[in-house]
């Protein structure tokens, strides 16, 4: 049966997609701008005989997620910024334990309490993490309500396939805005977790899941194995959007909702004859360095645009280091006021003049 498009708020879309993906257990603590996810699931999950627990804190919620994930079921929590900060302890354990689960992080402005405005200020929190030790939080960033649905599916699939925590990194704008989207069937195969999950040691040896390891060699090897997994994820599960990058002189890099606004500005620029393209990583972590490096070799400059003080910028610069010697410009600001298409276009125009017209002259463009 073909599903109809519905007018959906981002947070409800994520919650419904989680249900559709077969999420068996949800744990969460309220925080704006993502509270609708927990509200929706508090009714829906018990109706389906699935688990919903209003946790006493995010510290507890992430530990409940660890417990649920250790049994092999699909499990999820959702939160935002200053509360995701509280989950870093658990995320490090979950990553070290190789437990599959999904974290939805709907960014608000910070630091501290900041406010509930849309923000991209937690790119570093998601991709570099505050948890201890060597691990990566696999992170996907949607830019529309439909992608909130599709990437929620992807997060569950990747988490289950690779036994790793996966983060859906949205923001307050995506969480709160409404637009048409389809909650389709979960498109991925179900991954059998029975070879490792804790289900009771009936007719088999007992299993234990622990990040602690006394043997130096084994401890080291285990982390190496986890990092090999990240390489496989980048190879097999990478998603990105390239728009008009062929023949472009200047490429805009942006992620999430800002990338969507930037795309409209790039269209405007193309209309006005500026050879501008857009690269939007959707898988943010592990970061698609090779693709950025390839693009960098063909253009005269990169303009990175983010609703923060320059976070993905570090990954962009690291990607092209030693590969291309082009200028990497940045336009961004701390969260609070969303960017407009005209505003971004103006920046594109300025940087284009500065980099491209300076190099070729206006006549050659």
């Amino acid at each position, binding site marked *: 049966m073909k599903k109809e498009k519905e007018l959906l708020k981002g947070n409800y879309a994520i919650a419904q997609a989680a249900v559709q993906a077969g999420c068996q257990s949800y744990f969460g603590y309220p925080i704006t701008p993502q509270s609708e996810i927990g509200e929706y699931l508090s009714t829906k999950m018990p109706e389906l005989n699935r688990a919903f627990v209003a946790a006493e804190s995010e*510290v*507890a919620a992430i*530990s*409940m997620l660890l417990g649920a994930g*250790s049994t092999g079921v699909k499990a999820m929590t959702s939160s935002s910024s200053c509360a995701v900060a509280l989950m870093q302890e658990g995320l490090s354990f979950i990553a070290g334990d190789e437990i599959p689960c999904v974290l939805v992080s709907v960014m608000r402005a910070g630091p501290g309490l900041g406010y509930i405005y849309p923000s991209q200020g937690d790119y570093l929190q998601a991709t570099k993490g505050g948890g201890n030790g060597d691990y990566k939080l696999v992170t996907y960033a949607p830019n529309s309500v439909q992608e909130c649905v599709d990437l929620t599916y992807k997060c569950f699939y990747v988490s289950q396939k690779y036994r790793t925590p996966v983060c859906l990194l949205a923001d307050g704008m995506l969480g709160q805005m409404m637009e048409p989207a389809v909650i389709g069937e979960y498109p991925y195969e179900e991954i059998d977790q029975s070879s490792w999950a804790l*289900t009771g040691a009936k007719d088999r040896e007992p*299993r234990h899941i622990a990040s602690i390891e006394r043997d130096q060699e084994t401890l080291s090897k285990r982390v190496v194995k986890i990092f090999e997994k990240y390489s496989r994820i980048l190879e097999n599960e990478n998603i990105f959007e390239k728009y008009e990058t062929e023949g472009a002189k200047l490429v805009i890099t942006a992620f999430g909702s800002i990338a969507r606004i930037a795309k409209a500005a790039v269209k405007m620029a193309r209309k006005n004859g500026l050879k501008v393209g857009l690269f939007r990583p959707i898988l943010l972590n592990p970061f698609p360095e090779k693709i950025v490096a390839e693009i960098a070799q063909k253009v005269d400059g990169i303009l990175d645009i983010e609703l923060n003080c320059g976070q993905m910028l570090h990954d962009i610069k690291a990607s092209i280091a030693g590969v291309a010697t082009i200028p990497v410009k940045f336009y961004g600001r701390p969260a609070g006021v969303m960017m407009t298409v005209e505003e971004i276009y103006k920046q594109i125009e300025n940087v284009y003049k500065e980099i491209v017209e300076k190099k070729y002259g206006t006549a050659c463009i």
Partner: protein
Amino acid sequence: MERLVYKKPESIRDDFKITFCPGCDHGVAVRLVAEVLDELGVRENTIGIASVGCSVFSYDFFNFDIVEAAHGRSLAVATGIKRSMPDKVVFTYQGDGDLASIGLAETIHAMTRGEKVTAICINNTTYGMTGGQAGPTTLIGQVTTTTTKGRKPELSGFPLKISEILKEVDGTAYVARVTLDSPKEIMNAKKCIKKAFEAQLKGLGAGFVEILATCPTNWKMTPQESHERVRGEMSEVFKPGVYKDKVSEA
């Protein structure tokens, strides 16, 4: 005449390794839990949670599925497991620092929600694994590495009475405090541990047993002196007994 054979419970691994210090009561407590799980016939259906502290290597000796929790988070992890797999027997084995200091919120709230899980708490009035620092249950006057002149209430408050608190929590179905300082008390402790599991199995709510245990290494006492301390000043402050029993009422 019945022949009594002392043998290793099935819930203890054949190749078990014990990392506890000589004279420590952990070994007895672990064995009692294992015997209870054997007698209830639930070993193959049990998922245990190893907490941070001396119990962190639980999978070295327990012969069933075990997952590790971050420090203090055992009962949150237990909640996640039990809610996802309601037919499993889920229990935590924690120290007093883990359960009543860093994990007090997780403890109180799991119990308040009436999670059908069991928590066994070893109260030895100190942080054993890290070398004997003062914890939430350290007695007034007790010398530790962080109360070198003895715990002073004006400086670091009072010992926390876990069983008394959890008795008042509506979601608990069984709360008891026991000691392991004589064969009689050990038998009693086993009975209480069994009840704490029955609270879960009967779906009555959370079961909790606080075990007053020795830590000769950090107390700098012999095992005999340590048990005298449990019988004496520890039992005076932390009164052993059954604080709540909905299992027998049910």
